[in-house]
């Protein structure tokens, strides 16, 4: 589909915390080029699923295959280097670094220059620095922060930080982006901008999974929705299918009294 895309296959992914099963036997496939929403009530295990996929908490059971490579139990930095990159629910930009430097951090696994190159400013170093600065500027432009390049991330507004977080993830040249509630806490204007950014990235060929609580936002954004409830994947389909799914309605608003007897 897309040159940037890669297929992510989850096979019975399970994550236990002691006696608590946060993610329960999730099996699905996300193909290159897709834009997928991941929804579910609070505590459904959405972020836990991301944690299991990106290696923060290796899955207790099951298998994760990404781009043909079994990444189950790999350390997070290796998974990121394979092109599966996530953003965070709680803003996690590096506050004491400028926007530009935050994005440069994303290039880490795509660059090679080492201590020797840094000390003696070798050709490799100069070329990489030039390429990275150019690419970083383009990314900042894409997320609408080009004029804040030399502002420290800690001095940005909340919405700007959220966008920087995405820009930094984009810099890591992901084959698949896992966004964790990118729109949480944003005002309606910022939400709109963020939805536009996600659509732009999608058009650019990025494969994305988006966790989102705002149903209206997600329904207008994605082509496919996965619904988690108590760790289990209870629905998988188009926004319309999912919206009318009895199990999803039950998970979100509880059982309808009139149906209690059925």
């Amino acid at each position: 589909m897309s040159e940037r895309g890669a297929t992510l296959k989850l096979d019975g992914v399970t994550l236990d915390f002691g006696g608590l099963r946060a993610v329960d036997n999730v099996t699905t496939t996300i193909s290159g080029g897709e834009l997928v929403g991941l929804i579910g009530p609070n505590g459904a295990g959405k972020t836990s699923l991301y944690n299991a996929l990106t290696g923060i908490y290796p899955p207790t059971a099951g298998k994760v295959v990404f781009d043909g490579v079994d990444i189950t139990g790999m350390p997070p930095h290796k998974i990121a280097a394979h092109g599966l990159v996530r953003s965070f629910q709680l803003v996690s930009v590096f506050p004491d670094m400028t926007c530009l430097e935050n994005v440069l951090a994303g290039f880490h696994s795509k660059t090679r220059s080492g201590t020797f190159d840094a000390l003696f400013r070798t050709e490799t170093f100069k070329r990489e620095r030039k390429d990275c600065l150019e690419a970083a500027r383009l990314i900042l432009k894409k997320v609408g922060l080009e004029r804040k390049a030399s502002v420290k991330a800690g001095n940005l507004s909340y919405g700007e930080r959220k966008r920087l977080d995405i820009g930094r993830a984009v810099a890591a040249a992901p084959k698949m982006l896992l966004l964790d509630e990118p729109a949480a806490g944003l005002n309606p204007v910022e939400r709109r901008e963020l939805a536009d950014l996600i659509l732009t990235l999608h058009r650019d060929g990025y494969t994305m999974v988006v966790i989102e609580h705002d149903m209206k936002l997600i329904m207008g954004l994605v082509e496919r929705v996965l619904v988690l409830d108590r760790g289990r994947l209870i629905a998988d389909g188009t926004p319309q299918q999912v919206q009318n799914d009895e199990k999803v309605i039950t998970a979100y608003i509880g059982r309808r009294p009139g149906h209690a007897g059925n």
Partner: protein
Amino acid sequence: MMQSAARKQPRQRLLVAAMAAIAIILPFAAPNAYWLHVVILGLIHTLPVLGLTLFMGYAGQLSVGHEALYAIGAYTSGILLRRGFPFIVAFAGSAILPYFAAKALGLAVLRYVKGIYLAPATLGVSWFLNALLTNLVKLTGGPSGLTGIPRPAWFRHETQYYFLCLAVVLAVYWAMSRLIDSRAGIAFRSIAGNDIAAECLGIDVYRYKVFALALSGLCCGLGGALYASYANYICPADFSREMAVRLLCMCIVGGLGNMNGAWMGALILNIVPELLRASNRLQLVLYGALLISVLMYWPKGLGGLLDLLLQRGRGATTGAADKYGGPAAEEARTA
């Protein structure tokens, strides 16, 4: 791309020139040998403080046991010189051994121990080392230490030794500033900012933490070597808990994560106690009060104050970028 020297602000260039002039004249202008002695100690302490600046300031990891690495450098050099090895060998040994000692410590500790829990871990290491220094009498001379550690042939006189220390400090400063303004520097600072986010961007956090500690050990080791030859005599008491705390104070008073702060902190915290000596019994009280007021009024330390001075009259945003002299500083200058 890299024409930062040419693009430096006039104010900055003037300051560098002034500091160079002061540094050259200082040993000849010092009122007496004692003040030169104090400054030399300040220069020597700058090295372990630069090490701390890298590990704590840039990579954001806590260590309360850096005097142990400083001690390893001093003892390595002391032992080698007393056995007649040439100075260059002793000096190299004092760089290499602490580097690997710090690396081993890092490999053991940094994978699982994080944040504030690094305090007891590094404290344990420094106790362990102190016990070794005290008890391996044949090697280290035990509690009475090692005497008669020579200085290198061309640097016997205080003034000459001053320039040796200055050269080593400048070399380490140069290397570290280049490393900080590179891919590794960005990785270190990312880890300090948010280690989980750094890991998820593809930065091997464990490896870079260990690397930062190992380089930090190297800096401490070089400082230790200079100290051993300078003092001619070292003993475990030179590398006590108090020394560890003094190094931390120098690092913090100078400003965490600020390389200029490192030498400023090291010099000031050597000079000020001497200035206060006249106050007799009040010396420690005044010294303590000074430390507290620096932390209260200039949490970014003396180095932060210097940055502020250099940036006056420039845009606030470019100032923030310039603080780390990173690629963003380039960006800010061109903008």
